[in-house]
């Protein structure tokens, strides 16, 4: 499937969300099994986004729901109020793929941003996809 074809399919499926998909970087900017930060202009204003890349391949770990290789969450850590989530360690805890805040070590689920230590805290998440070697976020 070409990038254009994929984008068309996305647009047609996601009719309620009209925000444009944006290209943020390329695969070469990512760090495997770790995170980088990106600056995103969204309809609600600018956002700092942490992007995690868990490549799937013959030599990589098999993970639950590892259909996706990319995750995008708030870069902002609500516990320390610093923008640092992308610099946390990625891991899995009790079956969930998580990132640990590098400041006070709370864990956030990559799939939905839920904090495991405090159920009232949840990071925002964004849809994120590869389009060939480019990384695109909906926001």
């Amino acid at each position, binding site marked *: 499937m070409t990038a254009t074809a994929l984008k068309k399919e996305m647009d047609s499926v996601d009719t309620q969300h009209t925000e444009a998909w944006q290209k*943020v*970087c390329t695969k070469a*900017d*990512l*760090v*495997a*099994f*770790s995170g*980088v*930060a*990106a*600056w995103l202009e969204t309809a609600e204003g600018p956002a*700092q986004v942490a*992007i995690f890349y*868990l490549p799937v391949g013959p*030599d*990589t*770990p*098999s*993970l*639950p729901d590892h259909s996706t290789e990319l995750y995008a969450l708030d870069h902002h850590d609500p516990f*320390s*109020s*610093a*923008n*640092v989530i992308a*610099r*946390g*360690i*990625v*891991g*899995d*805890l*009790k*079956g969930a*793929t*998580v990132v*640990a805040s*590098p*400041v006070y*070590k709370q*864990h956030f689920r990559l799939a939905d941003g839920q904090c495991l230590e405090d159920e009232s805290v949840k990071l925002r998440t964004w849809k994120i996809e590869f389009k060939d070697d480019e990384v695109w976020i909906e926001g």
Partner: protein
Amino acid sequence: MSTQQQLIIIGNGMVGHHLVEQLVDNGGLERYQVTVFGEERHRAYDRVHLSEYFSGRDAESLALCEADYYAVSGVELRTGEAVIEIDRDQQEVVTDQGRYPYDRVVLATGSFPFVPPIPGNDRDGCLVYRTLDDLDDIRAAAENATTGVVVGGGLLGLEAANALRGLNLDTAVVEFASRLMPMQVDNEGGELLREKIEALGVQVLTERATQRIEDGEASRHRMVFQDDKVLETDLIVFSAGIRPRDQLARDCGLEIGERGGVVVDNQCLTSDPAILAIGEVALWNQSIFGLVAPGYQMAKTALSTLTDGDTQFGGADMSTKLKLLGVDVGSIGDAHGNQNPGARMFRYLDPIKQEYRKLVVSSDGKKLLGAMLVGDNGVYDTLLQYYSNGIELPDEPASLILPQSSGAAPTLGPGALPETATICSCHNVSKGDICASIDAGAIDLGGVKGDTKASTGCGGCTALLKSVVDHELEARGVEVDKSICEHFAHTRQELYDIVRVEGIKTFSELIAKHGNQDTHCLGCDICKPAVASILASCFNEPITDAAHIPLQDTNDTFMANMQKNGTYSVVPRVAGGEITPDKLIVLGEVAKKYSLYSKVTGGQRIDLFGARLEDLPDIWSELIAAGFETGHAYGKSLRTVKSCVGSTWCRYGVQDSVGMAIQLENRYKGLRSPHKIKFGVSGCTRECAEAQSKDIGIIATENGWNLYVCGNGGMRPRHAELFATDLDDEQLYRTIDRFLMFYVRTADRLQRTSVWRENLDGGLEYLKEVILEDSLGINDELERQMQSVVDTYQCEWADAISDPEKLKRFRSFVNDDRPDPSIIMTSERGQLRPA
């Protein structure tokens, strides 16, 4: 509460303090307002381990409670205030500072050292050994002394002799009786004890009655004995027994025993029911109990009496297990066999190994009445259980004291002990109490200790307690889980061995081969940094290599210390704290250019705060160009080697401490370890580098270097322990190589050397055997491994700034060059800080 009664405790020693703890823990304070008077300026401290005051422990670490324990508990402690009278008519206790009304009084004044009435016993430098202040006096007197004599060869006398040895004095022990420790051992045992103690360089003189002490010729004093023989010495410590401090009781007319001691009944009541006496001042059934365990039992009895309970004191077992001058001595029950007519004795003497064991057995051969051990206390715990629980002896009782190779009976396992068996006599904890603690939820040794206080007194039951706890946990099917996290069913130590033995070089290989099958295999923020550290210790590949970078904590990833606002601090290495003016200027210029807050660290270097992620590579390019290298302030690795200025400048220095510090810092920089490691090197015994608070402390001597290990500052300060003396430079490096690698191999994750050492089975002696005597035969390997780390060192920052791939991560945003706009600084005292 208006109904509260006034309870005054006179004496803040171990027993008096124990009574306070009993009152606090058992609701005694609802009924009593408690005031404690202590004559000494220190709050209660551990007198059992007093001689450790000369081997590194200070008053604070010997204290039995935290400084605020009394205040927090609501008990008034008046230290440095001696009671001078008990006015029974007015029911008031009188001190030099006032009069205090009482409803009840507990006398816990303890005892004082007996000084024989010898002419000259009050000369300067004639001292006693009982309190911390006494020890300060001894230390002061030892400064200008080369020889010391202890008068008295009993338990306390040998303790005092150990203390004098610790002060580097040529030490002699003078005993009136025909052998050392006449109370605890017989002639054979005494002879063995003498041989062992003389082998340590302590002179032993028995059957010596000192007639007078006068001016010496070569030394300060001359002791003249009954046969006109003389002994010259600079310092004399009297330790010829103790006497109850019963003067207050005498003055107010309480009943006193013929040879002293306040007479008490089974409730610890004196002849005045308003007044109780406990501990070494109390005379029960014509006996004074000079050990801490019976004192604690009396304290519990006193609590019961004060709160209308019915606990009675029924005497106490005087069995005791000691290590005096490194020599094991054990005494159980009727050790001499002279209190039980018809008793039979078994003796075993090994003149080569210098071990002596004796059993006193009932005439029918079924019960153990007493035992005596010199040289090896290995069977003490087992024998004590036979004795105190009346367990029937095996058919051949001698098998209990024969060497293992001659088919000796196996030791009495914890399973064979009855529920009533006392495990910890200091706190009177039975096996049943331990089982109850486990049933109530304690899951490990620490939990049981916290619940029951077992093994927190003299510590003599540590091994037995552990075996009982382990046995009971196993019996309940509890497998003590030491796994590092859910991804590995291994301890850090096991993972380390796996990595080394199998040569595994990446996390992914390790988790694929040895990870838990039922968890997922990304790892987590516990195991990943731990494995990263192990891999670095073993192979020393750059931590920023692609295979390792996802494992690192953010500090290691960005080779800087993350601060609370997401910025980093930068600490270049300043080996030994020595820095040229040019380099200082560079630090200042870099700090100015990148608006960094500057602060001098405790480790003699300079910390530059507030560096933005994207500025780190530029900052480091400039620092490296000026000759700096990374300081590993972000890593679990060698931090600094702090030094004093040493013999180069200092009038007192005896070695070049700065030179040595730089050598050491350059040798061990970059070593990844279970936790951070700090060194200190002092150029003389004044110890200006505070080396004894470091993981590795080195203090110069006239002949080389003394090595101290496993100290710590921080949250739980611990003095480093003397490990080896008068090493030359090469010996020092070798010894530290081995020590550090052994620590790297065997410590838990994030376990500093101090905690590692405290958890090490066998303690300091074991560590010395491994490192100094090569008891495990691993020293060549440890040295090789360290040499490989030293040889493969490279500055991580120099490596990173030469690799564009590694620098990619040092961007605030992958798609935007702007710095993080939410980092806001404000100005304070001329520098920037987070707003």
